[in-house]
């Protein structure tokens, strides 16, 4: 609860900054505030909220899973704020931008700790609505507008499905509470047919939101069109939050009891996503768009963990931990990659692959960090990305989805192809005239993310033991 309050308060503060004219001081305040939120999230490991009122407990529980997931998101957010320094440089909308980002993150945190369908729905909407706007925040750019609109349209369309699913489940079980739904699920005899229709609809809604094939088609356009910092936010924090939400429903005992029903659906979707995401990423010429498609593929990987997460209410430990680790690794690498995109894109924002030609000579630091990030995305040891993939593949094997694992492996092989095109361009092709310079903030950020990627790659236990705690939250409550 504390991080939620801190972030909401920060959002209000941002709005007050506009009113009381301290916009210049806002950015440092935000950094401090988000750092505070991180601290408060971490502090839950030692201390919990204490006795909370019944009404809060039934809606939100900041259990270990939520702590880990939100810590990952908040740390990413902190890094993101450094990445997006420019996004907050315009005096005219610094307050709006920061308030919207913070509100979105409030939604993201709710998604990690909800105990009730109401909170799931609200969390998703609180997360999405500011993002629609942020995606369109470059108002004069048509592609930004388009991105916002597509995102909005698909988001609200998906909300419809999600709600219909929630409704049917409510009708079948008589409750919005996850615990009660789980209890009803475990007593399967009374479940009417439309309960399963509800699960399908809920699933469709959620899959839409996280851009899983065949509901993925909007994602590349949206990621491509949105301003780069926003894309970075979408592919890190938002993705983590959405998957945390899915894990809570499908890997936990809530729907775990009927996993034989939804597993095939998830399996097929995972396979499709891995194939489509990777294959279409190959033909892209814009690096941003390539990253967009690859993020679809990564979503497929994460979904693979979900698909192998729960077999008849027995939770697969690797799946939960795998999702968290993968999300963390992916976030770190994405932050690095998008920072490089911002640096390379410069003023024009053009990030076609040609712009990367000869970057290795022009600006070795940027090129090396980009390489590390891309290696991590491709899942090559000793980067953190490898361990993410490793845990999820292990989970898939353990869940008995060998075929999914193989598709995943083949997919990441294709992934290597498009990631390495960028590396080849950076080190092999001849440089053009333009110089590429990074601000000191960005340099520092690149350094930090590179260190994170490598350290997590060499000593994954640092995070993985942390993730271990999250498992406890997913076990059925007896």
């Amino acid at each position: 609860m504390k991080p939620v309050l801190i972030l909401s308060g920060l959002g209000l503060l941002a709005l007050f900054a506009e009113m009381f004219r301290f916009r210049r001081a806002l950015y440092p305040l935000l950094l401090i505030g988000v750092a505070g939120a991180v601290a408060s999230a971490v502090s839950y490991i030692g201390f919990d909220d204490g006795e909370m009122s019944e009404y809060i407990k039934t809606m939100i529980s900041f259990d270990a899973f939520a702590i880990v997931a939100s810590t990952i998101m908040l740390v990413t957010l902190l890094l993101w704020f450094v990445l997006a320094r420019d996004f907050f440089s315009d005096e005219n909308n610094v307050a709006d931008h920061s308030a919207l980002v913070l509100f979105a993150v409030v939604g993201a945190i709710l998604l990690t700790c909800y105990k009730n369908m109401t909170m799931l729905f609200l969390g998703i909407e609180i997360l999405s609505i500011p993002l629609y706007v942020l995606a369109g925040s470059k108002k004069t750019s048509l592609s930004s507008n388009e991105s916002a609109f597509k995102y909005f349209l698909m988001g609200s369309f998906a909300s419809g499905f999600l709600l219909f699913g929630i409704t049917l489940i409510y009708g079948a079980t008589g409750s919005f509470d996850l615990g009660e739904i789980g209890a009803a699920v475990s007593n399967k005899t009374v479940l009417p047919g439309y309960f399963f229709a509800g699960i399908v609809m809920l699933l469709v809604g959620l899959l839409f939101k996280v851009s899983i094939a065949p509901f993925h088609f909007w994602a590349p356009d949206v990621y491509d069109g949105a301003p780069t910092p926003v894309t970075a936010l979408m592919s890190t924090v938002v993705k983590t939050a959405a998957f945390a939400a899915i894990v809570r429903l499908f890997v936990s005992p809530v729907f775990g009891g009927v996993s034989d029903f939804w597993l095939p659906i998830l399996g097929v979707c995972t396979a499709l996503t891995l194939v489509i995401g990777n294959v279409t990423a190959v033909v892209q010429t814009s690096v941003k768009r390539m990253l967009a498609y690859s993020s679809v593929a990564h979503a497929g990987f994460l979904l693979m963990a979900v698909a192998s997460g729960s077999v008849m209410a027995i939770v697969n430990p690797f799946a939960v931990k795998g999702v968290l680790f993968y999300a963390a690794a992916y976030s770190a690498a994405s932050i690095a990659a998008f920072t490089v995109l911002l640096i390379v894109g410069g003023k024009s924002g053009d990030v076609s692959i040609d712009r990367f030609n000869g970057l290795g000579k022009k600006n070795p630091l940027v090129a090396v960090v980009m390489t590390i990030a891309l290696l991590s995305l491709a899942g090559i040891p000793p980067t953190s990305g490898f361990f993410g993939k490793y845990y999820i593949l292990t989970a898939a094997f353990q869940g008995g989805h060998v075929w999914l694992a193989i598709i995943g492996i083949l997919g990441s092989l294709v992934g290597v192809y498009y990631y390495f095109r960028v590396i080849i361009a950076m080190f092999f092709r001849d440089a053009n005239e333009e110089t590429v310079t990074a601000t000191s903030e960005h340099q520092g950020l690149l350094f930090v993310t590179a260190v994170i990627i490598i350290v997590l790659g060499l000593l994954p236990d640092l995070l993985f033991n942390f993730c271990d705690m999250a498992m406890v939250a997913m076990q059925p409550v007896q």
Partner: protein
Amino acid sequence: MNSLQVIPIDWYIILSAVLFGMGVLGVLFRRNALIILMCVELMLNAVNLLLAAFSTYLGDAKGQVFVFFIMAVAAAEVAVGLAILVTIYRNTRTTDIDFLNKLKG
């Protein structure tokens, strides 16, 4: 006289499903962004109706309270969506979503 006694819940489910399906169809069918938004609203309303029906049949007020949240969200969504639409219109002078294909491919 109360609907509880004479109308089976199935009727409401089917009605909602039909309305919802119509909304989905509209979203897929139409190109005018405004009408697509309206169809989304129709979908949400189908959900609301079903929630209210379930709520009454279960004798549980939570369903109706949930409807209020959906309404709040719908209002927020529409406000944002229309704002986006107007920004687009300022740039393109059209609301046909197929014009919005600059990003394709």
